[in-house]
């Protein structure tokens, strides 16, 4: 019997970049197959080819032994493939129910659709408010909607592109369990990820891509995190050791650079309170980690401290200059259409001597950008390249380089390694630690709890807008419970 889905000798070139060089991939019926690889390894491209979104230059796609190399996503859907994309594909102005109906091809009275959508999402264990507009959902629920949409269309094969990238650990677990149940019910799933533990925990088999070629394929049972990591990046990853164990003396050492008392913040959407009566002090040289589940007010907290939103009431004193690494690289951190030089210039005008209102010295700007590219190991086609032409990791490095180049007294980072491969993430974490060592007060939020714990000297949990300091002796599980505390009630 032929395998369910088979990709043979796939080659694909985008301009001068060879995304895939003869990759093979097979998905057996009823399995969860993890597709591992660094950013730019070709994981997404391979699955886009399987789904008919991208045509391969060479190689073939087979479903149940039938050649489907040149099919379209529509045909793929009709034959039972469903894809959950890395970027959200819901229509923000439509309700959850309408989005699901659109994806599944349902028709009927709105109220009927609503009931149907709600019962489906309940049944899947991914509850959603069917009346809510998709654009109003927090990121984690948007992601949930994507999966419900794919399953609503009766997919038998689910291709998931980094589905847990934006989720907090408990939500990620929940989602992975849904995938597991889907496989147990006879479905098959491909999980694109770069999180080793996910692959190890969930998958039956794993395929590792590196620079467009398969470097490893086999069952998960025989693997350990380090054997997979080696296949992904070639050698054991160098990680930052936990800050807590490294320098227990750091807190309290420097002057107080962030002083926040009884702060109240409204939600970014404009409705309700995001943070109530929050107090926090951060000293120079200290890294404070924020642990929180998506949508609990941490976003507003970080943005208020970064000076991007104004508090409703309370006291907030932040010493400048402030460096800010926003969550969304390509819409908030960078302007993809503009050059690297222009992106470095963006927002530096208050400090850089070569930017004056009447004259921007682009020659100096270019030289400065080249320096940063070299200093931060950013792979780019020179300072005149468009920011959009860089890979995700290099874009993030550019943002970090820009924000650190202003020697910030306070650095605020939102999910700074989101969607990055191990190497790039480690480099970013190193830079953040180094900034603290150089005397900056650092506030960092990550949806990856382990990253928060690894980076920070102390951790603050934000739950339903209430800040609470985590005791130094707390275990990971205790912190996880603090993050979910009020939700459970």
């Amino acid at each position, binding site marked *: 019997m032929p395998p369910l889905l088979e990709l043979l000798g796939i080659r694909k070139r985008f301009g001068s970049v060879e995304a895939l060089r003869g990759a093979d991939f097979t998905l057996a019926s009823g399995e969860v197959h993890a597709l591992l690889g660094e950013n730019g390894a070709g994981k997404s491209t391979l699955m886009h080819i399987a789904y008919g979104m991208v045509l391969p230059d060479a190689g073939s796609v087979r479903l149940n032994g039938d050649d489907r190399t040149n099919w379209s996503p529509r045909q793929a859907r009709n034959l039972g493939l469903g894809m959950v994309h890395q970027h959200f594909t819901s229509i923000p*102005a439509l309700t959850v129910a309408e989005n699901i109906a659109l994806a599944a091809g349902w028709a009927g009275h709105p109220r009927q659709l609503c009931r149907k959508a709600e019962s489906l999402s309940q049944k899947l264990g991914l509850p959603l408010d069917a009346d809510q507009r998709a654009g109003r959902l927090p990121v984690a629920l948007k992601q949930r909607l994507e999966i419900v949409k794919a399953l609503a269309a009766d997919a038998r094969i689910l291709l998931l592109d980094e589905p847990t990238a934006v989720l907090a650990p408990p939500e990620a677990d929940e989602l992975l369990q849904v995938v597991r149940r889907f496989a147990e019910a006879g479905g098959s799933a491909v999980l694109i990820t770069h999180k080793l533990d996910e692959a190890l925990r969930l998958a039956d088999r794993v395929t590792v891509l590196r620079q467009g070629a398969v470097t490893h394929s086999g069952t998960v049972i025989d693997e350990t995190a380090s054997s997979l990591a080696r296949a992904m990046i070639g050698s054991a990853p160098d990680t930052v050791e936990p800050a807590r164990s490294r320098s227990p003396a750091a807190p309290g050492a420097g002057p107080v650079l962030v002083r926040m008392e009884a702060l109240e913040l409204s939600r970014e959407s404009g409705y309700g309170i995001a943070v109530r009566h929050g107090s926090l002090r951060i000293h120079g040289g200290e890294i404070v980690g924020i642990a929180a589940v998506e949508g609990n007010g941490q976003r507003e907290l970080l943005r208020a401290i970064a*000076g*991007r939103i104004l508090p409703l009431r309370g006291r907030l004193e932040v010493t400048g200059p402030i460096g*800010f690494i*926003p969550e*969304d690289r390509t*819409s*908030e*951190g*960078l*302007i*993809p*259409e*503009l050059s690297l030089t*222009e992106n470095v*210039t*963006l*927002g530096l*005008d*208050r400090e850089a001597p070569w*930017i*004056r*209102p*009447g*004259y*921007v010295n*682009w020659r100096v700007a270019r030289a400065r950008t080249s320096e940063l590219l070299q200093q931060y190991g950013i792979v780019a086609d020179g300072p005149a390249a468009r920011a959009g032409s860089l890979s995700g990791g290099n874009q993030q490095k550019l*943002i970090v380089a*820009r924000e650190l180049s202003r020697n910030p007294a306070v650095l605020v980072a939102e999910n700074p390694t989101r969607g990055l491969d191990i190497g790039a993430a480690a480099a970013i974490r190193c830079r953040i630690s180094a900034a603290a060592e150089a005397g900056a007060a650092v506030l960092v939020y990550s949806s990856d709890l382990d990253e928060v714990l690894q980076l920070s000297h102390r951790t603050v949990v934000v739950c339903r807008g209430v800040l609470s300091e985590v005791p130094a002796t707390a275990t990971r599980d205790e912190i996880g419970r603090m993050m979910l505390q009020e939700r459970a009630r």
Partner: protein
Amino acid sequence: MNRLWWALAAMVIGLSLLATGLYLAGYDPGIALAALFSGAFGSWHAFTSATLVRAVPLILIGLGIAIAFRGGSFNIGGEGQFYAGAIAATWIGLHLAHVPSALAIPLLLAGSAIAGAAWIAIPVWLKLRFGVIEVISTLLLNFVAESLVSLLVQGPLQEPSRVYPQSDTIPDPARLPLLGDSRLHAGFFLALLVGLLLWYLFHFTLWGFRLRAVGAGPRAAEISGRVDPQRVGAMALFCSGALAGLAGGVEISGVSYALFQNLSPGYGFTGIAVALLGGLDPAGVVLSGVLIGALEAGAGAMQRDAGVPAVAVFVVEAAIIVVTLLATTPKGGWMNARVIRRIRPAMRKASG
């Protein structure tokens, strides 16, 4: 350079289309095109008095449109702002009979620019206060401005004999000096100056950089660049309106000397084409302004000498724009991606 070749190709395609159309309609394309050319470039007099005179308002309005588009906003109301400027210029001009030129002209031009900015202030306010998209509001205000002109020239601003629906002519001190014995007025050099200034502003000032940043990525400009995109957008629209108003003032003070209905043969709309054809770059806009000015000037000569209706050159204009847009389109698309990218934020806003 590539763009220049495309512009030339566009020109050739447009003219061939025109020639074919004329041939099919029974005209002699040779005579018509010769008349078109000589009307635009045939003599120094034709070039200055016809082509360049036509180009002045197109360049000024086109530069204004380019500012707005670059900043991610849309000004489709150049026509209305042109008339607002023309009304202000006429009113100011009529009151300046005993003021020296050195004072009268700057006053008149400043007044017309302010009037243009004031006219666009309404859409800007509607946009900031209620989220009304400026594409619609600026467009609709064109009709209001046109009606206002027709009201004024049959009422308060009508010439003393009350026979013709037009204003009295403005006195000599309020008129722009002419170049030699041609009809080309000093407004042309003003337009060049504005183009040069804008070129510097776009490429070398923080203001211009922020404008481009907001146009290309409003969210990143706000979060990472700490720029208020609404403020920058409003600013761009004000400048855009001011330049269109200035074009109206220059037309009154340099060409017509009086206000009347249909003073503008659609300068406000042709200005959009000029801006797009010029790639939203000041140097390009000046060049495309002269080119379109030449076509319109030549059209008059073609009608006179070959009996071909002047509107036939719209075929050429349209063809040039379509080809230019196609030339800058990425593979597979059919419309200029840059334009789409600029329109997209407005669409997003419209959809809530």
